[in-house]
């Protein structure tokens, strides 16, 4: 039992933060919001150079062979930077699930290419209808009821959609249940689809942690500097308490997301509960952070010129992605009432780690 991260784990996250500091600045996000490419290719290349697409890939596929405990801080950093690309979707949703289908020849060929970032995959799931696509996608992983399919990019009909979060490029897939070639069907496909959803939810949650921290930073910096009525806005107790409440939410969402990452592959009730709990706790924190950050900025927070809105909008978008609040809340309620989830103080870690 050890609930701390290793130095290796935090250093890998620091490397991603450094990358983002160079290539995912607010200025770059602004370009994305204006419709430009905003350095997407370069970011993808640099992620690939750092080997980050392969963190969870088997050594045999050229990956690092690490675990979700090693990935979760990376997703948090991606969130902190509002990274536009579906990095977690490729590296920590599609790849580990595809790795379970490694007996399939095409999949076996694809895994090293996904791990190196030369292949680029988008992931559709009924609970994630608006798909964040990588720049120049090569493949699709398509989940639908009783079917898990792999498709090449040209084998999928996707329509572009416009989001309040213009940082990402989202599309909607039509006839996802018919496109591509089935890798699994029936209950096996549903089990793999459930893992896709759990992974999507957990890493969306991790991104929300990073977004929350970023918004809290932006807001705290602003109120330290901004003066009204002769004193810094941040010296008013009401402003302090608003921001402190965000800090509390963040502090207690973090361990929930980290714990969920350790059972990202689990399908037992405890693991499902952990994933839903993570999604709910982290999106709640991010939504509170957004609401609070704009409030303490005053009219300034409402302007396009400030960077704050890039992060707020990502938070709102992720809130609905990979199972919205209703989906996870209802699932959690069901799990708590059904009796399969062990309750009580001796069952804090009632999930398959």
């Amino acid at each position, binding site marked *: 039992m050890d609930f701390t991260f290793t130095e290796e784990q935090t250093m890998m996250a620091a490397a991603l933060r450094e990358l983002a500091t160079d290539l995912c600045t607010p200025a770059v996000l602004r370009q994305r919001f204006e419709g430009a490419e905003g350095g997407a290719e370069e970011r993808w290349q640099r992620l690939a150079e750092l080997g980050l697409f392969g963190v969870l890939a088997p050594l045999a596929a050229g990956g690092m062979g690490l675990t979700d405990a090693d990935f979760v801080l990376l997703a948090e950093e991606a969130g902190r930077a509002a990274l536009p690309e579906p990095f977690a979707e490729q590296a920590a949703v599609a790849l580990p699930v595809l790795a379970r289908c490694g007996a399939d020849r095409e999949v076996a060929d694809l895994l090293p290419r996904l791990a190196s970032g030369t292949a680029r995959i988008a992931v559709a799931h009924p609970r994630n209808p608006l798909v964040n696509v990588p720049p120049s996608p090569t493949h699709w992983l398509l989940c639908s009821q009783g079917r898990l399919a792999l498709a090449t990019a040209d084998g999928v009909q996707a329509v572009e959609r416009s989001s*309040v979060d213009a940082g990402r490029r989202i599309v909607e897939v039509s006839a996802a249940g018919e496109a591509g070639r089935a890798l699994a069907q029936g209950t096996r496909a549903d089990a793999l689809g459930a893992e896709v959803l759990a992974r999507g939810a957990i890493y969306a949650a991790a991104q929300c942690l990073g977004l929350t921290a970023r918004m809290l930073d932006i807001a705290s910096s602003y109120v330290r500097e901004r003066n009204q009525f002769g004193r810094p806005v941040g010296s008013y107790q009401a402003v302090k308490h608003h921001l402190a409440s965000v800090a509390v939410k963040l502090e207690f969402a973090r361990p929930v997301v980290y714990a969920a990452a350790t059972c990202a592959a689990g399908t037992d009730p405890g693991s499902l509960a952990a994933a839903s709990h993570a999604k709910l706790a982290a999106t709640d924190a991010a939504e509170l952070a957004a609401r609070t950050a704009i*409030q303490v900025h*005053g*009219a300034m927070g409402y302007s396009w010129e400030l960077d704050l809105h890039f992060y707020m909008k990502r938070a*709102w978008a992720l809130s609905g992605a990979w199972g919205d609040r*209703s989906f996870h809340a209802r699932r959690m309620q069901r799990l708590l009432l059904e009796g399969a989830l062990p309750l009580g103080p001796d069952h804090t870690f009632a999930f398959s780690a």
Partner: protein
Amino acid sequence: MALDLAYTPAQQRFRSEVRDWLAAHVPQAPLATLESEAGFAQHREWERTLAMGNYGMITWPAEYGGRGANLIDWLIFEEEYYRARAPLRVNQNGIFLLGPTLMEFGTAAQKARYLPKMAAGEEIWAQAWSEPQAGSDLAALRATAVRDGDSYVLRGHKIWSSRAAFADWAFGIFRTDPASERHRGLTFMLVPLRHPGVRVRGIRQIHGEPGFAEIFFEDARVPLDHRLGDEGQGWHIAMATAGFERGLMLRSPARFQVAAQRLIDLWRSHGAEADPALLGRVAQGWMDAQAYALNTYRTASRLMAGGSIGVEASLNKIFWSELDLDLHRTAMSLLGARAELVSAGAPGPADDWLEGFLFSLAGPIYAGTNEIQRNVIAERLLELPRA
């Protein structure tokens, strides 16, 4: 008998008249956004239509182009207006804020010059209060209007000016005594926006549209009669204007009642898959909109009986802004995965709610942040000591 909550026959007749007139005149197709030049022109045209029906400002005295209607009639008018889904009022700064201010502080010549054109929808007014360093703290403003012979020379930078992008005139306060501090030495000015030395630049808001503007005054010269009231009286007049803003006219309950009704419809279409807790929030939204409506009738009755509006304005501001936020947050939750969608052009329900949600985030901020309103309530109503 008081606490009599039935409409009089005259009130019922008035409602029917308004309903019939709106049914005949409200444009079938939604107007383009106020934040585009074309849309602004369409809204201007609608103001002219309203004025022709004598519905432009029913509470104004007849001499200024109104009907001298009382506040209950006003509430009935607004209920029908929102019920008919009639367009946003581009003229609101004029008719609700500057109009009453002019009636109280203007000279006869000023009233004659400005009120009829305002009433006719011919001149649209912008507010010009805030400055970059004077947001909540308005007394920190620095823009100057220095007297030079028979004119004032305006210098400075106003911001968060609503409607200014396409409006004709703006009103605001300027420092006529450059050595003065805080609330002193300020003067209320009426300023043409298409005028040498006046430059307007739209501010993009988080939804990407320029809902506000900045106004730069670079030695803009206006005649002395563009001053309202006396030199140095600006703060006093501005507070009166702010009083009209906090009054009952601007923030109609009907708006929230319509939103609550739409939210119930949204539950009907999206509730089957929703967290059951959201039904509680939907119902709370309706109840709060209803409470806001009832309280507005209560305040209207009190004002009509000779009462005045004081700290109630702060209670109102908090309540409607939090209500609006709650209604839209609930809608966003109900829309779930699709809440983020902007369906540019064709407005779908998600689109309306998303735009409304973004707008509702501003509610607790503008017209005095809710933090400031809570201070006011604590100090004036509960008599708690200042810090």
